[in-house]
């Protein structure tokens, strides 16, 4: 025994508060054969030196008493491994160790293992070589210490688990995704098998199940049960009735087919309701082997988890209900694709300012006329977002009705102006629109004849078969502002392969360039279209959209709409298709290796 050995085991936490403990530092350094005092020791006063001198001899005498109060037990062995001496603590921890015996003859003792369980206590040992081949074993009982370490680790694991839960369920999710995420998160942290049953909708309840499957994460599946077939405990729980322990819960879960390959005796199960807006949004059933019973802390964790899962599912369901309404309304406000017309190839592009919204203040459309022609239009209403979109809806409906009574573009535009003024006055809202409205009819010499009326909108561009782009001279006043506005009108003819393009100011006023402040402008648009005379109308519309978006480079923008109509190259002779092989005859098939 050396002073250095003793110093190593001083826990430094004051637990050695025996009378001799206060003397310990002095005693250690004074013990026989000790290492020289090290630099870490505080400088001593002359009085202390004197006391030290006088206490050397008593230290040897006090040794058995001191050793008795050490936290570690001590076993001293001879060179042959025979036990020479056992301290009282060691006697208690290792009753098998007796002087004259060896340490090899009881369980758990292996020279190489520094920590093992013995008589229900967790022991930590270390061996220090003494002089003359003897060895000293220090044995410490670390059961409590490890217990608190385990408790801390468990607490940290719970916190980490809840952090993951917060991250996964904290974002708005689709209800089905949220349900799958809930069961996936519950395994293996809470259970081997987790089943989420959603509150029944129209007599049927959907369930999701996650089962532990190796280390890659749980296997998730789902199913449907008639509300009447749900286990009674689940039904009760959905009504908010049940306590958390339910008799025969495991049996009911097995009965429902949720625990395949398991018998009720093998598992312990728990049921927890997931809080919803008024009644529970669903219930979560967790099951694990009977050996891992749910303790108080597990139940607490389950409740916290259930609260978060309930909130996520409630949000998801709420969002879905609202999204269904919004979706239906949006669908009715989206520009309708132009109706097919002979000799006309339509191309459109539409990109609302708010990408998540899908609708905006730009609109286009086309309707067939009884005489074989079509009326088409593209415009832009004042304002942005939903309100603007609703106004485009009214406007399109107006046009849909009015084109049946008036097919002359300028007069139709004036009729629309009157109708809008009337609604505007009735509702007291100052809304107006700019638009180009045209009528297209097959021309008797081939191609298409166009008559266009302008209501304060950007004049259309025409891509000629030479590849050149010309702007139609079309002007006019805003629609829906004054009675009897000035409406411009222009006619033109599209030869086969020529295209007329209507577009909104979201195209030409797109801000981009080096600093994102320069407008795209008509010149760049004309440039982008020049030489594209062979492009089909949809490709040309998409090209304009692409050029605009490239110019924007992900910056915010106004609504963008393009409507292109191209005179198709009809009357083209039917081509012979060389590439289509004739059906293979049996003879040639046989010749094929």
């Amino acid at each position, binding site marked *: 025994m050396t002073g250095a050995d003793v110093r190593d085991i001083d826990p430094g936490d004051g637990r050695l508060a025996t009378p001799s403990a206060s003397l310990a530092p002095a005693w250690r350094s004074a013990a026989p054969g000790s290492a020289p005092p090290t630099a870490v020791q505080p400088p001593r006063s002359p009085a202390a030196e004197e006391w030290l001198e006088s206490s050397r001899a008593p230290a040897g005498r006090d040794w058995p008493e001191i050793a008795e109060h050490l936290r570690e037990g001590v076993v001293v062995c001879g060179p042959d491994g025979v036990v020479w001496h056992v301290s009282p603590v060691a006697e208690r921890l290792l009753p098998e160790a007796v002087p004259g015996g060896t340490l090899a003859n009881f369980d758990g003792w292996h020279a190489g293992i520094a920590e093992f369980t013995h008589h229900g206590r967790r022991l930590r040992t270390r061996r220090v070589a003494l002089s003359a081949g003897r060895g000293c074993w220090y044995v410490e009982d670390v059961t409590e210490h490890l217990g608190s370490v385990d408790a801390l680790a468990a607490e940290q694991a719970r916190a980490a688990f809840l952090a993951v839960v917060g991250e996964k369920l904290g974002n708005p999710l*689709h209800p089905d995704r949220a349900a799958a995420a809930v069961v996936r998160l519950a395994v293996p942290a809470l259970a081997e098998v987790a089943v989420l049953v959603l509150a029944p909708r129209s007599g049927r309840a959907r369930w999701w199940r996650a089962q532990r499957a190796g280390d890659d994460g749980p296997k998730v599946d789902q199913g449907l049960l008639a509300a009447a077939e749900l286990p009674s405990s689940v039904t009760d729980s959905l009504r908010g009735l049940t306590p958390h322990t339910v008799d025969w819960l495991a049996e009911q879960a097995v009965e429902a087919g949720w625990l395949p390959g398991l018998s009720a005796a093998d598992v312990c199960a728990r049921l927890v309701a997931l809080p919803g807006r008024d009644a529970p949004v669903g219930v979560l059933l967790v099951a694990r082997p009977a050996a891992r019973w749910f303790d108080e802390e597990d139940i607490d964790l389950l409740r916290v988890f259930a609260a978060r899962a309930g909130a996520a599912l409630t949000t998801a369901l709420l969002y879905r209900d609202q999204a269904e309404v919004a979706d239906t309304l949006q669908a009715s406000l989206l520009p309708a694709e132009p109706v097919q017309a002979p000799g006309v190839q339509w191309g459109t592009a539409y990109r609302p300012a708010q990408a998540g919204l899908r609708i905006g203040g730009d609109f286009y459309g086309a309707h067939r006329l009884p005489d074989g022609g079509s009326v088409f239009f593209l415009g832009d209403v004042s304002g942005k977002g939903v309100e603007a979109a609703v106004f485009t809806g009214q406007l399109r409906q107006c046009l849909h009705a009015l084109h049946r009574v008036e097919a002359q573009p300028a007069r139709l535009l004036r009729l629309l102006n009157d109708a809008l003024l009337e609604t505007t006055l009735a509702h007291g809202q100052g809304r107006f629109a700019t638009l180009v409205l045209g009528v297209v009819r097959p021309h008797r010499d081939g191609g298409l004849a166009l008559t266009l009326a302008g209501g304060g909108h950007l004049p259309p561009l025409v891509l000629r078969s030479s590849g050149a782009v010309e702007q139609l001279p079309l002007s006019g006043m805003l629609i829906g502002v004054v009675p009897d506005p000035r409406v411009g009108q222009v006619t033109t003819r599209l030869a086969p392969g020529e295209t007329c393009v209507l577009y909104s100011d979201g195209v030409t006023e797109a801000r981009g360039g080096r600093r994102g402040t320069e407008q795209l402008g008509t010149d760049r648009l004309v440039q982008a279209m020049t030489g594209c005379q062979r492009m089909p109308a949809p490709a040309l519309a998409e090209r304009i959209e692409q050029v605009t978006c490239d110019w924007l480079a992900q910056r915010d923008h106004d609504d963008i709409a393009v409507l292109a109509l191209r005179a198709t190259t009809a009357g083209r002779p039917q081509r012979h298709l060389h590439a289509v092989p004739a059906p293979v005859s049996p003879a040639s098939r046989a010749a094929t290796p």
Partner: protein
Amino acid sequence: MTVAVTGALPAAAYPEYLRCLAEADESAAVEVARGLLDAGVPADRVLLDLVAPAQAEVGERWARNEWNVAQEHAATHVSEQVVAAVSAYAGVRPERGRVVVACMDGEWHALPARLVAEVLRLRGWQVTFLGASVPAAHLVSYLHRHDAYAVALACALPMRLPQAHRMIEACRRSDVPIVVGGRGFGVDGRWARRLGVAWAPDAPAAAELLADERALRASPPAGLAQLADDEYAGLISRRAELIDSALAELAHRMPATRVYTPSQLDSTVSDLGYILDFLAAALYVDDGSLFTEFVEWLEAILDSRGVPAVAIAGTLRHLSGALRDFPRAAGYLADGYVSLPSPERRASAPEA
């Protein structure tokens, strides 16, 4: 019909199909595809062995400056119509989950993604193709409204990797697994690995990956520790200023650029923007080869359009001077510079 015969048919029809694309002849192209289907060629073979290689050839012709953008657009449009016709012909009933296929915001090369979408549809998935240039907000709100089993995201240009990463994260937050594809993630998918996302080299591989949900969800962690040095963020914030200074330097070094038309100036500005965006993407994924590959590609593109590589070389020199405080960026610029042919480099060197 033996496998060998049906396998050879798309190759036999290929020249005629290319001719239809060159003439932007939609109905003839559809006829070619329909003929193959009638002869018993499986629909996915028509897509992968006829339409896909033809589209790659269209891109090559544009790169060699044999076709202009208008021809490329028109050919692509025709191929899209063919894909639609092939899909309608096969008419497979969806029996598996919903897969959402989208192109990155700003990506207009939708056809490769469309082919993936159709191949997945042919394998029984219920596919929603959101089209070209899908804004992240649009994709996310779609995922909220419709339960999706997975998202397949295409990215053709590596310069969009930072945005792709944000889109991947957005899908993950909606708890929808994601698989990515396209040249933008590198020919071997190495930048997808860097972003910690599952990658498929082609449509059949994507279909295989989607069939294995656990493989889909088991994505490796992203390796983006390099972003801590702020070089990426710094470069992005100095983008406009760097374009200005590079333009000024170009005007000083090459007097011809002073009399550029507005549209020539626009394309010079956008080329400078590409250089900086690819450099930024290389910083983002911490891989200089991304930038070097781009420089080699740009050199080839500009060369085919009569712009000498000396213009790029000088700009790279200028930028590496302006980015002296960005060691990683300066290193990539130096590597890009070295990858250019040496006479061009000498010509770009300032006179002693």
